[in-house]
């Protein structure tokens, strides 16, 4: 059943190829600009590819650690937060992933979640404490299903590759602009061999291209990112078999205006909802947004009705936006899947959920819980004070 999305992925690979062509083209434009010769184009193109290759290899080998490190995520074990762990394992089964992803908690009051891992064998799911505080079990399952959808659809590899291309394009365009500022290549063609007119036109074309390429690249990248979000929603609805869980979670996330601690543009497209800046509110999505408008995502999920398969998602998407998100060819022969409400788990108050989430994060960060014999307070001792370095309870002064 998941093969349909796999097929749909080919379109996305084409988009990335387009970005690659743009990257080489801008390399050539910058090369020409620097040297003032046509041969410079070749050198520029090769340098552009080389730059991308180095960045890509770095991300390939260390990308997950870099991203998890940037957000300050801590890996947790089953005993630290059984519910989160269980939900991830359930979705692993539903998506038939070969291996359960590692589970991380991020110490951030802004509710959000993301997944990393370029292949499903080595993936990780991370959620913030703020998310665990406000969502109930069904909603948490919806969010985790969306993240597992990203892993199953191999979006992380795709978006990292595209993101690095975008980064390289912006970098090269910046380089070209600086060259122009210093009057770099522009004076060279005058003393060239006669064909000055043609050269000058070429240079002007190259200049215009250098200014427009980063904008185009961003538009392409953002459109790709939004599409992958929709498809992850579709997969999430199918895996959890309960689109309402994800819809309700998105509604809660949209209602919060807590700014995110992680403000990096590199990690932004990975989150389930766009990280907010300080004082910012959620507004309508534009062509320059990595994420589709939340109201639209929610309306599509709620319009799916009784079936939760990808055909139902595409139908609902079409009736909301007038377009299709999955290719017609990919939809033929998809067996229908019916909605099914998950089992009702134990109900917890938000305060208890916050405490559990925060304890789980601290356990993941290596803190040791220790009950004071004097006053009964549970002390959470950080790693640097463990091993008898803390002599007395800071609350009542009793010896530890």
């Amino acid at each position, binding site marked *: 059943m998941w093969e349909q999305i796999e097929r749909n992925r080919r379109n996305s690979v084409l988009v990335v190829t387009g970005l690659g062509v743009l990257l080489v083209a801008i390399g050539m434009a910058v090369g020409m600009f620097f040297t003032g010769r046509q041969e410079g184009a070749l050198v520029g193109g090769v340098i552009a590819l080389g730059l991308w290759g180095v960045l890509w290899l770095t991300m390939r080998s260390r990308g997950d650690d870099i991203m998890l490190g940037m957000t300050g995520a801590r890996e947790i074990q089953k005993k630290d937060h059984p519910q989160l762990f*269980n939900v991830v394992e359930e*979705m692993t*089964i*539903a998506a038939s992933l070969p291996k359960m992803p590692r589970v991380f908690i991020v110490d951030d009051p802004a509710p959000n979640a993301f997944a990393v891992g370029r292949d499903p064998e080595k993936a990780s799911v991370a959620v913030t404490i703020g998310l665990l505080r406000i969502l109930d079990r069904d909603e948490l399952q919806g969010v985790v299903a969306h993240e597992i959808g990203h892993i199953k659809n191999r979006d992380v590899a795709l978006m990292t590759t595209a993101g690095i291309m975008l980064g390289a394009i912006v970098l090269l365009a910046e380089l070209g602009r600086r060259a122009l500022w210093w009057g770099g290549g522009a004076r060279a063609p005058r003393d060239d061999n006669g064909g000055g007119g043609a050269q000058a036109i070429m240079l002007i074309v190259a200049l215009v291209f250098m200014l427009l390429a980063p904008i185009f690249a961003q538009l392409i990248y953002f459109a790709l990112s939004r599409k992958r979000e929709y498809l992850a929603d579709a997969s999430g609805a199918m895996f959890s078999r309960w689109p309402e869980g994800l819809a309700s979670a998105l509604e809660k996330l949209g209602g919060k205006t807590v700014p995110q601690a992680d403000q990096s543009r590199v990690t932004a497209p990975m989150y389930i909802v766009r990280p907010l800046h300080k004082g910012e509110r959620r507004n309508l999505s534009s062509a320059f947004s990595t994420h589709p408008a939340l109201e639209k995502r929610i309306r599509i999920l709620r319009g799916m009705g009784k079936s939760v398969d990808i055909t139902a998602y595409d139908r609902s998407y079409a009736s909301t936006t007038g377009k299709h998100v999955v290719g017609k060819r990919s939809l033929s022969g998809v067996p229908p899947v019916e909605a099914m409400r*998950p*089992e009702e788990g*134990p109900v917890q108050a938000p305060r208890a959920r916050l405490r559990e989430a925060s304890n789980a994060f601290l356990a993941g960060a290596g803190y040791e819980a220790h009950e004071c014999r004097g006053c009964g307070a549970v002390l959470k001792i950080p790693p640097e004070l463990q091993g008898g370095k803390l002599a007395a309870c800071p609350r009542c002064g009793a010896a530890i």
Partner: protein
Amino acid sequence: MTGVWIGVGALVVLVLYFVGIFNGLIRRRNETQNAWSQIDVQLKRRHDLIPNLVEAVKGYMTHEKGTLEAVVQARDAAANAKGPLQAGAAEGLLGALLGRIFVLAEDYPDLKANTNFLALQEELTSTENRITFARQAYNDAATRLNNAREVFPAVLISGGFTRADLFEIEVPSERELPKADFGG
């Protein structure tokens, strides 16, 4: 002479084509078996959790002895069931009875505040969900295998692949459940 070579070439291509189909069938069969063992793992998990649950609620739910005994019986029946069809029926009954315990637990505030019970409830909730998802995954794999072995030309060589049964959990209607003893 060229004709012979073309004939040999065509034969080789044909053989490779069927080898490909055969390997595809084997892959689908392995997928189905893996999916089935995943259900087995989850059912076993459920069977292992039930004695703990009964132990945890026994002290509180003194008036529901009948339901608790029925759960234990259903568990044993399910643990000894053979094959998807028999297991499906037994597990369906067990699932319905478990659901009832959690509904009845609503009337016992002390029990609902018991952390041990809450932890067990989370584990059993998760197990029920896992069984649902594993069953879905198994049925998808089984349907893929059944379709693959029946289409032409795979049907010419798929004699050795048996049709996989789908796993349907029969949920007995409320009145078929053993009556709980409210007499106490």
